[in-house]
């Protein structure tokens, strides 16, 4: 286990860090120490103040998207998990309904992306519906290729990663606790707030880690749903890679890794997952 971890994770990661300090030209990497990959990435960050430079603006946007998506996946995921765990009594139904939640994963990423156009597009279903109902005269443009559509697609995709760990935590809650709370005269909200949520914390944190790490590194969904017009940390890395600027891409990857790692450490501060499990 440790061996696999070392060979397939630690070693490549070390390479990425090493390469991020190399120099490069149009067609090859030059193994000499330089911080060019880093300082060129932050070009203009001081001179352009108070305006944000590319790197800061990109990260602000990425983190913002990440928070919105996290909030919605959490709210929806928690509600669905609550329903599955406490309102659906039979095991069979619980399994059947959980499987339904995997439907978004049945089609390929590409097909799913393309399918949004007929729905949200200028001549799409939603716009036609709105016009027919007389709510708007002109098609609504921000439905597609906007931050709204990015969040919609990401929430649609990743809510499942919230549902599973939260549902798992909920199923471990001793039902007698809930009955005791009821007998002691607690309202439904009090039970939710004082018993269920604290006991679900590990599930919530695990789900959050899934969602945050995926969204922070995503560039395909953001690219397609944002019409390639919305910056993302992952997108910068991709553009650099495609221009054969491997060290610069590696430097950006190291930064992204660092920031994502920081977020996870902070989450861990809130809940000690290892202890709770």
């Amino acid at each position, binding site marked *: 286990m440790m061996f696999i971890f070392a060979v397939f994770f630690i070693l490549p990661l070390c390479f990425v860090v090493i390469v991020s300090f190399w120099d490069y030209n149009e*067609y*090859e990497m030059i193994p000499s120490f330089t911080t060019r990959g880093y300082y060129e990435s932050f*070009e203009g960050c001081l001179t352009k103040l108070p305006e944000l430079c590319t790197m800061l603006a990109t990260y602000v946007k990425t983190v913002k998207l990440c928070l919105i998506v996290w909030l919605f996946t959490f709210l929806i995921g928690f509600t669905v998990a609550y329903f599955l765990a406490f309102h659906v009594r039979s095991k069979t139904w619980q399994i059947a309904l959980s499987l339904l939640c995997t439907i978004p994963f049945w089609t390929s990423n590409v097909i799913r992306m393309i399918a949004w156009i007929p729905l949200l*597009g200028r001549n799409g279903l939603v716009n036609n519906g709105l016009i027919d109902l007389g709510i708007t005269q002109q098609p609504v443009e921000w439905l597609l290729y906007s931050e709204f559509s990015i969040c919609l697609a990401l929430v649609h995709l990743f809510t499942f990663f919230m549902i599973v760990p939260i549902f798992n935590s909920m199923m471990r809650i001793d039902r007698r606790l809930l009955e005791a709370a009821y007998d002691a005269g607690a309202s439904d909200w009090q039970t939710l707030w004082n018993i269920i949520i604290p006991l679900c914390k590990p599930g919530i944190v695990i789900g959050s880690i899934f969602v945050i790490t995926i969204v922070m590194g995503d560039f395909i969904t953001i690219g397609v749903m944002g*019409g390639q*017009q919305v910056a993302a940390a992952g997108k910068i890395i991709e553009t*650099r890679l495609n221009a*054969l600027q491997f060290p610069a891409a590696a430097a950006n990857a190291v930064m992204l890794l660092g920031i994502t790692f920081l977020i996870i450490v902070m989450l861990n501060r809130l809940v000690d997952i290892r202890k709770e499990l």
Partner: protein
Amino acid sequence: MIKKKISRRNLFKAGAGVALGSGMITGFPAVHAGEEKVLRYLGTAVNQADAISKKLFDDTGIKIEYISATTDDVTKRVITQPNSFDILDTEYFSLKKLVPSGNILGLDAKKIKEFDNITPIFTKGELPSGKKIGDQGTAPKKVMFLEAADSTTFAKEPTQWVTLIPTVYNADTLGIRPDLIKRPITSWAELLNPEFKGKASILNIPSIGIMDAAMVVEAIGKYKYPDKGNMTKEEIDMTMAVMTEAKKSGQFRAFWKDFNESVNLMSSGETVIQSMWSPAVTKVRSMGIACTFQPLKEGYRSWASGFCVSKATTGPKLDIAYEFVNWFLSGFAGAYLNRQGYYSAVLPTAKAAMEPYEWAYWMDGKPAEKDIKAPDGTLLEKAGAVRDGGSYDDRMGNVACWNAVMDENDYMVRKWNEFIAA
């Protein structure tokens, strides 16, 4: 060493014995297995047609193993894994990265049968009629020849050593939806016309997108570049500033990167004017939606691709590679490409393999005498239609610039990221 040689020879003998044995049983001559001619062909999927590889096998017995990847991934693979392919199908602008890496073999022009028939667009930068065409950007003649077979520097004048044998090229321009625009479009400037706010698009591939942006900047009369294909840092800043301003005001609906994305944007009416590739326009049209590959007064942005051979390809394999390249230029493939709306590098052989009415439509810009069909038999145009932009001379003769990798490429890519983030 000696011992090793002997053992290898023994192994060969044993192998031959087995092959002979199996040959006797099945009735096939055993030598065939040893002579199987296989080439690994790396490229974008554009030219990798089954019809071509099938015909090639029938004519020459060469088997093609297609390895397809995106333009960027092809380049990456040549740099990092030069042993993983024999034949490379790539664009001229990539050569600025590929040749200095030393992974490309200079080809001997004397071994290319039709070399003298290759259109002078490549060798001299002019039409067969002698008219000079635009050479801003990475025009083929700048990177076509090497100083020696194993050189990594480009020769200024034609030499015997060729980096890339051209196969296909075209002149690109804006695609429009005439049914939604309802007025004539004649200039690249229209891409930034506020009339099409939220309905325009460009490519999100920096090497190509920057050239489209430059065409627009010149068309709106803001600046005249000494060389669009090799901008200074200031010129890059200025070009990106114009595009950034347009982006911030909501001019662009989306950027596209993939052929199918451009088709979707156009056919769904999300965009009405955008930079586009010829087969994408054809595809939109074959869906029954009006789409024009609009000729513009400032001219076309051109591109060209062809075959390189990996440095790792030697001996008999190299002979097969030459045989393949010679076959590709001998007519069938050229006619196939012409029928898709591209142009073949060797025109006389392609002409011989096409019907006169096809040649008249695709190359001479004449109204189609009969229905025009794609290579796979689907109907492209009804009789009477005229090709957008007209004849070969009208289209290729109006090329203004070529897809490019600039000296300031690194800076440009960073600015492009800034543009996307703006």
